[in-house]
């Protein structure tokens, strides 16, 4: 005689092993409201997002707040993501940088004096600081190696704009260099980095 079927709860079935799914595949699942997929996506993206935001903002509490904003924004707008617009990491980093920079600029707009002080601090800060952190782990070595292929002005322009969240005019001010030169160095510096890192998009 057949045993009576035991009632089963769907939720008790463990989810399949997901660790092999790429961030892009996870995002497609997230777009369907899959919170479990979002959790796995979090594991891939939270570290880079927080790291970048803190690099720009420096303040710990503010960085965590902005990183949280960015991660929730990824959830909210996953429905607008499509892989042909670039990798998930790319998308997350672009959003994180934008949010961090927005925060810096709105704070910096407050006083001119503060702004001057920031510039002075940046000017006297050794750029090695950034390079040191970049070298911290072996997988960062390629980035460091490629940064060392840039001219000093290219490297300083790219690092000040990206990690400090400066506009190119502000970079020009710090480096006491014409604005037009900085504009060009930012572009050719990034192009040289792109070619060295073998970035495709």
């Amino acid at each position, binding site marked *: 005689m057949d045993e009576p079927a035991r009632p089963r709860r769907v939720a008790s079935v463990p989810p*399949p092993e997901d660790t*092999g*799914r790429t961030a892009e*595949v*996870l995002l*497609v*699942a997230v*777009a369907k*409201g*899959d*919170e479990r997929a*979002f959790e796995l996506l*979090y594991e891939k993206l*939270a*570290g*880079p997002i*927080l*790291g*970048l935001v*803190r*690099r720009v903002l420096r303040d710990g509490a503010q960085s*965590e707040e902005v*990183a*949280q904003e960015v*991660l*929730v924004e990824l*959830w*909210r*707008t996953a*429905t*607008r993501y499509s892989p*042909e*617009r*670039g990798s998930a*990491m*790319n998308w997350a*980093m*672009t959003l*994180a*940088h934008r949010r961090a920079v927005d925060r810096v600029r709105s704070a910096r707009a407050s006083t001119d004096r503060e702004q001057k002080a920031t510039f002075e601090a940046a000017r006297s800060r050794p750029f090695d600081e950034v390079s040191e*952190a*970049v070298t911290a782990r072996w997988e*960062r070595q390629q980035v460091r190696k490629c940064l060392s292929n840039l001219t000093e002005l290219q490297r300083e322009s*790219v690092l000040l704009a*990206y*990690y400090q969240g400066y*506009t*190119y005019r502000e*970079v020009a001010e710090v480096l006491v260099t014409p604005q037009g030169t900085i*504009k*060009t160095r*930012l*572009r*050719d510096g*990034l*192009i040289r*980095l792109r070619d060295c*890192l073998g970035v*495709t*998009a």
Partner: protein
Amino acid sequence: MTSSEMHTLAGAYAVDALSEHERAQFRRHLEECESCSQEVRELRATAARLGAAVAEDPPVWLKQRVLAEVHVTRQQPPLAVPEPLEKSRRRAKVPRWALGLTAAAAVIGLALAGVFGGIALNTRSQLTTAQEQAAEQAERFAPVAELLAAPDVVAAHGASTIGGGSTVVVSRSLNKLMVLGTQLPEPPPNSIYQAWMLSASGQPRSAGLISGDGSPLIAGGLDGANRVALTVEQAGGSPTGRPSLDKLILNMAMPV
């Protein structure tokens, strides 16, 4: 600012180093400059590497806070194309001037909204939506146009074992391919077709997910791949990141 002066702003734009005003100007320029869009995508991807290089371990409580907020946050609806627009787009390509007209209509709509106040509000939001969708479509198909315009573009068609097949379009100079499902049967419930790039050495790499018949999938990084395969995978794609070989429905040579 001249077009070539504009072009030099691509680097500053990619790292958010423009003022709000210049940023808006450059975005308008981007809509008309496909090579600039490509450059910006690449430079942003480059900047992303600088970002990822300073990753740090987030505190455990951040995950709890984020997941809790996500749980009570509604997602944005996707930018779906409304029925009439979609039909006209499928029957004939929307020419550029038509997009301009849509924009012009939206501007007129905005002006009318000013005149009629609250009454026109609904119309205005519809027009704004239409304008957004037109821009979205143009953006979505820009990669297709770029691929088809490549001087070394080649295409091939392969038949699947379950009826229908796939058309594969490749440009080695752009290092990109496009996979289109053609009259493939509807995949079984909760499953989807996944495209793979195969090479003589190395693991198969996912090119992405495709529907049975419809939107093109574009993937980059051919990296020596010489075959394309399709498998049936569970919704969301192969959980192992490898093709399920028992569900292989197509394996064809990449066109050269």
